[in-house]
């Protein structure tokens, strides 16, 4: 009986349903506008974190370009909507495609190389993106940023003008993303990725075209990142070149690592944790950064599985403690 309950609890689709229901109930449960705002933000960043986790957690590729890729999507869609009166939904897709193409470009150049080349090249790419967004003023509006980004266009009877409606849209996209990534990871494609992360040489010798798999994973991940950027733009109504800076990418990394990289729910838990908890503590920005930096180092050192691994870690510690206590009693008796 307990085994059946346990397998039910571990069923992803059940988890996803519970998560979706809980997330949809949030607007009626949370009374404070500010907390609601934070939860909306963490849902947006969760989409980005889930996309980063696909390459980082499952393929073992450290990308420091995801913030830039996201904002590339956000800028593309917002400028299309504002300056070319393109329909929002079409612009969302185009933004996502542009991010995917840039991801493909960076991937083609760097994924052949082993080690840290990829991470550093994505870093450089991110810098160039925010630089171009700032300097190419005639198109991107430069350092003034893009203002008055409209809400998503209505879909039939569905309107998205209010924050609540935008929140529902974001949650739906998050749920779809989670389902998509879960299916990818469970497919032969996902297993090949994990094989590559575990030991690329062995995976190659078994006939896995490692470079191609990584390239496909990174391109898909970039496309999802582009969607998260559009969600951010249309929720905040404003984009600035600094949104594409290193820090956005870095925070995405933080969400994944603190939540638990290589797990399906880790990035979601990480985004909620990192966005909401420091706010409860009411810290100033610089103290929050200090705290996050320390937490990051501590988590990577003592809890590499992130918050997702907290349960089993605690259980392990308790077990060991009990064992030593029993041994001590035996020795004394």
């Amino acid at each position, binding site marked *: 009986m307990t085994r059946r309950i346990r397998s039910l609890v571990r069923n992803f689709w059940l988890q996803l349903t519970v998560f979706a229901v809980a997330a949809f109930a949030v607007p009626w449960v949370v009374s404070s506008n500010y907390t609601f705002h934070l939860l909306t933000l963490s849902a947006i960043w969760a989409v980005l974190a889930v996309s980063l986790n696909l390459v980082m957690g499952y393929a*073992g590729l450290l990308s420091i370009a995801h913030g830039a890729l996201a904002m590339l999507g956000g800028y593309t869609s917002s400028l299309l909507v504002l300056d070319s009166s393109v329909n929002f939904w079409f612009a969302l897709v185009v933004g996502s495609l542009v991010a995917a193409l840039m991801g493909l470009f960076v991937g083609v150049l760097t994924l052949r190389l082993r080690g840290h080349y990829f991470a550093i090249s994505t870093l450089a790419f991110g810098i160039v993106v925010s630089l171009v967004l700032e300097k190419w003023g005639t198109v991107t509006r430069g350092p003034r940023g893009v203002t008055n980004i409209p809400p998503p266009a209505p879909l039939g009877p569905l309107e998205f003008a209010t924050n609540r409606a935008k929140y529902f849209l974001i949650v739906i996209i998050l749920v779809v993303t989670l389902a998509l990534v879960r299916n990818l990871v469970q497919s032969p494609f996902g297993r090949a990725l994990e094989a590559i992360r575990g030991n690329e040489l062995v995976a190659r010798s078994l006939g896995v075209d490692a470079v191609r798999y990584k390239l496909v994973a990174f391109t898909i991940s970039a496309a999802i990142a582009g969607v998260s950027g559009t969600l951010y733009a249309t929720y905040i109504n404003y984009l600035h070149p600094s949104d594409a800076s290193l820090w956005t990418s870095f925070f995405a990394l933080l969400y994944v690592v603190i939540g638990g990289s290589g797990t399906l729910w880790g990035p979601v838990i990480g985004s909620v944790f990192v966005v909401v908890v420091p706010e409860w503590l009411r810290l100033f920005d610089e103290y929050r950064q200090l705290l996050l930096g320390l937490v*990051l*180092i501590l988590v990577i050192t003592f809890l*590499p599985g992130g918050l997702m691994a907290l349960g089993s870690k605690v259980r392990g510690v308790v077990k060991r403690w009990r064992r030593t206590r029993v041994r001590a009693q035996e020795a004394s008796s």
Partner: protein
Amino acid sequence: MEILVQQLANGVMLGAIYALVAAGVALIFGVLEIPQFALGAMAMLGAYAVYFANVGFGLNYWFSLVLAGGALAVIGAITHRLVFHPLRNAPGINAFISAFGLLLVLESGALILFGATYRRIPSPLGSEGIRLLGAYVTWQRVLVVVVTLVVVLILQQVIKRTQAGSSIRAVAQNPVGARVVGIDVVRVQTATMALGGVLAALAGGLIAPIASVYPTMGDTLIVKAFVITILGGMGSMAGAIVGGFVFGAVEALGAAYVSVDYKDAFGFVVLVLVLALRPEGIFGGSES
């Protein structure tokens, strides 16, 4: 011609600073295989150390520079023991992430302790300069290049000729083998991190009288240093130094003849070209 020389002089000066940090990155990567991303923040701390010693306590600039080097050697060694050493058996990606965490801690720590104000250090050589083929170059800029070259030469000789240097090379080539022949690997690794801190501190302290001192001054510096170490071939010191000067010159020439706005992007364009055409780096060998 004047513009060319002036820009080249600027480029070479900036390139020297890049080269110092990149040499630290290459050295640490060569020995520990850790991409030490926090080295930029260490350059920033070095600049603050020089500022407080020089402007705060009125000490001589050169003495302040030496003090800053010493202080950052200690910080480099301590952070290695606390942050990187515990991760020695973890996947390489973890050390990279920890280096980011360290950067965050050091930068926000500096922001909390020193505030966001831009601080200036007077040049020890005043605002005098020399005329060079029609261009005017201040002595401080000449100094940056000269000190860099001297430091790099000394470092290279130390690594090549001394006992400590050969230990470093041994650990870089094969940590297990080094342990077998009786080298204290952990000590060599800690010393390498300290050395990286010294190089970063010198870079920060040397650029401080030309630029300003502020908590995020190391960000672009470290990103460029990383790109340079790729250009030079990861872990190659000579590559890092030549790469640094080339990077500085490319930036300056790009700013002069193509577009000032995109000055910071030209080096990255070179990176893309190198990755596409010669992925092992300009100086990278076939090993590793």
